[in-house]
């Protein structure tokens, strides 16, 4: 019997599930252009080949990728690199035959390596991605793209002039429930998108145990501005990518506020952020993240005038279907409401509108995974395995993934602009110099 949490990395099955082979190709191309590279024919072509990959950064997230790589039939791990020996030892325990390096530049000199998987702290992304592309390697890098806007633009520009494949681990782009949910949104199921509400709440200090105080900034790199952009790049980047994907355009400005509310333990990055992104048509993304209360969990809500798509939970709700009551029951309730619950003192428009009970519909029937958002490493079936599998395929074919870099660039830019708005306590417009051709603002 298949275990509930078993990771299925069959790219063929994944493509089947999202409908590519059953006539959904046109819709798929519009909603997920990056999947056009993964046709069944192309999968057949690489059946007997293997991508030789190396993992740079073998901490918890690196080891998560190693676990997934070991299950990908067209991937072969040939080397690891880390300058923290316990992490390197842990990776070697998973794959003893791999070569080890403590300097990633030496690893890049190895001609046996086709592609590298970078799972290092954010401040290393730009240097390593640029060096790896320059060394002629295909690159798969963890999100977010980079620590600064300048670095993001440098990576984007370098990518335009390289023939190499570049992926960023925006795994929702390969998550079945997100893909199908986006198909539904783009086909008009929930009507016009009138708002977006994303939040990520957890009750955890985000700290990891440190064996020696000298390793504090190395191990808890997420907590310091020199190596991290905090909640925005670590959590919001995924959700803002989803917003861009749903609306197919980019917000033109952002305001926000960020503070250290609860975890006053010497960290520098905010533990509470509230950011509002504003589109040219007045639609807004309301983003909130707090790591000292987990009541609301993690949700990506796309609000349409006909319904709401809650992609993180894999459910959607329709506005004209607010209850499962029969027609006559609804009519009698409506008459009763009008007769008995109107508030004459304040007029009929004033009513305490507490949330109604909506009937949930499931985006994906039978098999879908919902993640609790507590893990700092990764979750099962969140698309990470599929995007890694797709990267390994691209290492063999050399075919670039359409829009993958652009999506990562846009999402990261919004994260960094959010941080800028919070730091400067003012409205920040999307800078002209960082706009790229694929971005639509109107």
């Amino acid at each position, binding site marked *: 019997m298949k275990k509930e949490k078993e990771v299925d990395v069959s790219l063929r099955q994944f493509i089947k599930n999202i409908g590519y082979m059953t006539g959904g190709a046109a819709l798929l191309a519009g909603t997920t252009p990056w999947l056009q590279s993964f046709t069944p024919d192309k999968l057949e072509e690489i059946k007997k080949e293997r991508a030789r990959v190396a993992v740079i950064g073998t901490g918890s997230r690196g080891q998560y990728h190693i676990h997934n790589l070991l299950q990908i039939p067209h991937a072969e791990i040939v080397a690891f690199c880390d300058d923290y020996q316990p992490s390197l030892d842990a990776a070697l325990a998973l794959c003893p035959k791999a070569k080890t390096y403590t300097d990633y530049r030496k690893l890049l000199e190895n001609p046996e390596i086709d592609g590298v998987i970078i799972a290092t702290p954010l401040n290393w992304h730009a240097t390593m991605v640029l060096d790896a592309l320059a060394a002629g390697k295909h690159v798969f890098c963890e999100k977010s793209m980079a620590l600064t806007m300048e670095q993001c633009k440098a990576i984007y520009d370098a990518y335009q002039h390289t023939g190499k494949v570049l992926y960023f681990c925006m795994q929702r782009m390969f998550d079945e429930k997100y893909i199908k949910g986006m198909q539904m949104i783009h086909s008009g199921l929930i009507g016009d998108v009138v708002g977006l509400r994303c939040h990520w709440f957890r009750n955890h200090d985000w700290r990891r145990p440190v064996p020696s105080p000298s390793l504090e900034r190395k191990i808890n790199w997420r907590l310091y501005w020199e190596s991290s952009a905090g909640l925005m790049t670590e959590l919001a980047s995924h959700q803002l990518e989803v917003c861009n994907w749903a609306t197919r355009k980019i917000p033109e400005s952002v305001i926000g506020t960020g503070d250290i509310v609860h975890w006053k333990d010497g960290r520098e990055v905010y533990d509470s952020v509230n950011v509002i992104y504003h589109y040219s048509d007045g639609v807004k993304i309301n983003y909130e993240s707090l790591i000292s209360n987990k009541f609301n969990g993690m949700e990506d809500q796309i609000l349409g005038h006909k319904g709401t798509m809650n992609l993180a939970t894999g459910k959607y709700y329709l506005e*004209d279907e607010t209850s499962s009551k*029969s*027609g*006559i*029951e*609804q*009519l*009698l309730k409506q008459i009763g409401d009008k007769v008995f619950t109107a508030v004459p003192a304040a007029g009929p428009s004033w009513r305490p509108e507490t949330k109604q009970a909506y009937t949930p519909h499931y985006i994906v029937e039978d098999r879908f995974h919902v993640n609790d958002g507590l893990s700092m490493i990764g979750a099962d079936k969140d698309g990470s395995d599929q995007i890694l599998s797709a990267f390994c395929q691209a290492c063999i074919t050399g075919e670039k993934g359409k829009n993958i870099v652009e999506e990562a660039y846009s999402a990261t830019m919004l994260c960094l602009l959010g941080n800028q708005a919070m730091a400067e306590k003012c409205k920040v417009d999307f800078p002209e110099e960082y706009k790229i051709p694929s971005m639509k603002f109107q």
Partner: protein
Amino acid sequence: MKDIVITSKRIKKEGRIVLICFIAAFVINVLSIILYKTPWMEIVTQLGYVVVVTIGLYVLFFFLRFVWWVVLKIFKRKKTKTGI
């Protein structure tokens, strides 16, 4: 104690009123199915509600008739007193 006599004419009249109330309730059910886009099966499955609405309409109609009867009674008494 005085016997209450219900004539067959009265029974027929009340029966007709109940029938009209039932038809009205049935039409309300059909209209609500159209209005709320619910399944047509509700014509059968919601007959219980139709009966409840029928009783409600009958009681409402009975109350209105009672009010009308009281008004007429008062009006007639005034006419008798004034000798018109």
